[in-house]
């Protein structure tokens, strides 16, 4: 079947919903620690039960990221990661039958050329792009370019977003809404932010799109807690830490634990 990116994301969320569970979403930067190893790592995520993968495009100035992801993208850049590496990893994910989206700061996409990026990502099997530093005010050209390839433009909402902003963000977002649960940068935290349930409730009031919660989730128990009320649970830094400590096996094991949390939550 010839699914568009937006449809693909919709159908994995629908599938999870029919199983009465949340989706497990995992992040790793492309080219970390090397291109070849990063392909093996995302495949391990797929095998361990991750439903949707965010492939990070390494950027020199990742303002939203804490030390763990900063070091990982530095390593990837040092080993020569480029947007081509991202496309390679996206293909590998798609080949496993798992839905890939890209997570990228804005400048690398702008320099690649937004239409070219949307086109090549679509060709590689990508379904959407999360743009953590692109505000909806600046996002119009990208929304049009992504729309031309049926890719989902995925924007973030934060605890500080007003209801009025949330509603405007939901109007231009497709696929799912990324609820950044914490006021802060990425990184595993001991406790899941208590701001998350309130934020998810406010987003629900604005949209029928699925809502995925990210920032700070690192283990199965935390994933289960979020999976009670959100449609997706996003895990990033913890996968980087698992890769650093245990490589492919470590990532597969973490994916299994998190998937277990998501499956038993409700």
């Amino acid at each position, binding site marked *: 079947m010839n699914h568009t990116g937006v449809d693909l994301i919709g159908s994995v969320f629908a599938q999870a919903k029919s199983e009465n569970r949340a989706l497990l979403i995992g992040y790793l930067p492309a080219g970390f620690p090397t291109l070849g190893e990063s392909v093996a790592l995302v495949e391990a995520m797929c095998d361990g039960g991750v439903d949707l993968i965010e492939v990070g495009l390494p950027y*020199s*100035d990742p303002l939203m990221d*804490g030390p763990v992801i900063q070091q990982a993208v530095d390593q990837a850049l040092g080993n020569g990661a480029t947007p081509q590496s991202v496309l390679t990893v996206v293909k590998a994910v798609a080949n496993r039958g798992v839905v890939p989206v890209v997570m990228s700061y804005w*400048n690398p996409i702008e320099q690649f*050329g937004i239409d070219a990026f949307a086109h090549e990502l679509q060709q590689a099997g990508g379904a959407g792009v999360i743009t953590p530093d692109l505000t909806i005010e600046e996002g119009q050209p990208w929304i049009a370019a992504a729309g031309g390839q049926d890719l989902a433009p995925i924007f973030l909402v*934060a605890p500080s977003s007003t209801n009025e902003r949330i509603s405007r963000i939901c109007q231009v977002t497709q696929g799912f809404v990324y609820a950044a649960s914490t*006021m802060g940068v990425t990184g595993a935290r001991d406790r899941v932010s208590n701001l998350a349930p309130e934020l998810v409730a406010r987003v629900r009031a604005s949209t029928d799109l699925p809502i995925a919660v990210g920032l700070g989730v690192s283990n199965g128990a935390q994933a289960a807690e979020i999976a009670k009320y959100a449609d997706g649970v996003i895990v990033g830094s913890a996968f980087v830490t698992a890769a650093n400590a245990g490589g492919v096996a470590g990532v597969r094991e973490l994916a299994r634990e998190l998937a277990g949390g998501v499956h038993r939550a409700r």
Partner: protein
Amino acid sequence: MSTTQANLQGDLPGHYGPYGGRFVPEALTSALDQLDAAFRAGVADPEFISRLVDLERDYTGRPSPLTRARRFGEHCAGARIYFKREDLNHTGSHKINNVLGQALLAQRMGKTRIIAETGAGQHGVATATAAALLGLQCTVYMGAEDTRRQALNVARMKILGAEVVSVATGNMTLKDAINEAMRDWVASVDSTHYVLGTVTGPAPFPEMVRHFHSVIGRESREQIFAVEGRLPDAVAACVGGGSNAMGLFSGFIDDANVQLRGYEAGGEGVETGRHAARFAAGTPGVLHGARTYVMQDEWGQTVPSHSISAGLDYPGVGPEHAWLHDTGRAIYESVNDSEAMDAFALCSRTEGIIPAIETAHGLAGVIRLGKELGPDSVIILNLSGRGDKDVATAARWFGIELEHSEFGASIELSEGR
């Protein structure tokens, strides 16, 4: 450039042609909206204005003088050179103008903590000073390379009661300090205002910082009329992020006959790749929240900058400068380390003013400009800061022996890292 440059939202607030805007995490947009509202309300509120004006007069020491630089002018083909003496402000540079405005806004917004990035340390010192004055907590982020070469200012900030965080990521200079300050701010925005130190960053920072520095241009305009009875032929400044330049330019931007000249850091030479010449070697892109000229590779990764001057050592530039450059209203040239240090020495010896090394880039530019415009021309240079903080660097550059003096000790201390 591709079609991506087509985001021509020149009419939207916070944009300068295709430049400027807001490229930030969603978590910061409400704080930027709050800041924008507080800024607009503040500058329309007579009480806020009078508090700021009182501080400028009684604390900063404004108006700063406009000094005719006769002996230095002889080296500028005899042009009539005037220095706008921002070096005489309390804390030693123009940076205090912006900081007092923003610190008052922080109070107005009910914030109890201010944070800042700093390169040369002048902005950090000014922020630590305002925090002490207004009873606010203060944290300053500074690249590890800069804490070494501007050790005097690190000590000043600590004496003033600020926490100084040495940033050891990336190139360990201003860009990396801004990254860390932004990360702090995302997590602390309820209690904390980020006092950005130059005309860069997401809206409303470029407009707001320019506004608080526009006093430089206003005073200069009045002062030059008083002594010369006419407008200058050109106004000139060094350009790091571009705040001292925008402050001066703003007084003359509507006078089409007044040339606006900016001087960026050529480092070891633009051809060597070790420089901070955004206009000579950068391209439009997005960095630290705004679209502007950026030193970047073909994939949009920021390329490290280099300059002997910590305050000019930054791979981006204020978005309004990008637009002034593209429209041709202002002209930007680069000045290498060695040319700047020659001008540093010349200014010291002809005028008895030791300038900041940032400022020395503007001084070198004015030597060229005098030759270009001729002996009858009138030129104002923003003498943005004094050189106390740079004495160790200059002594090293000129091979001045200081081993048995106090400065010798401070050089060793700063080289020890």
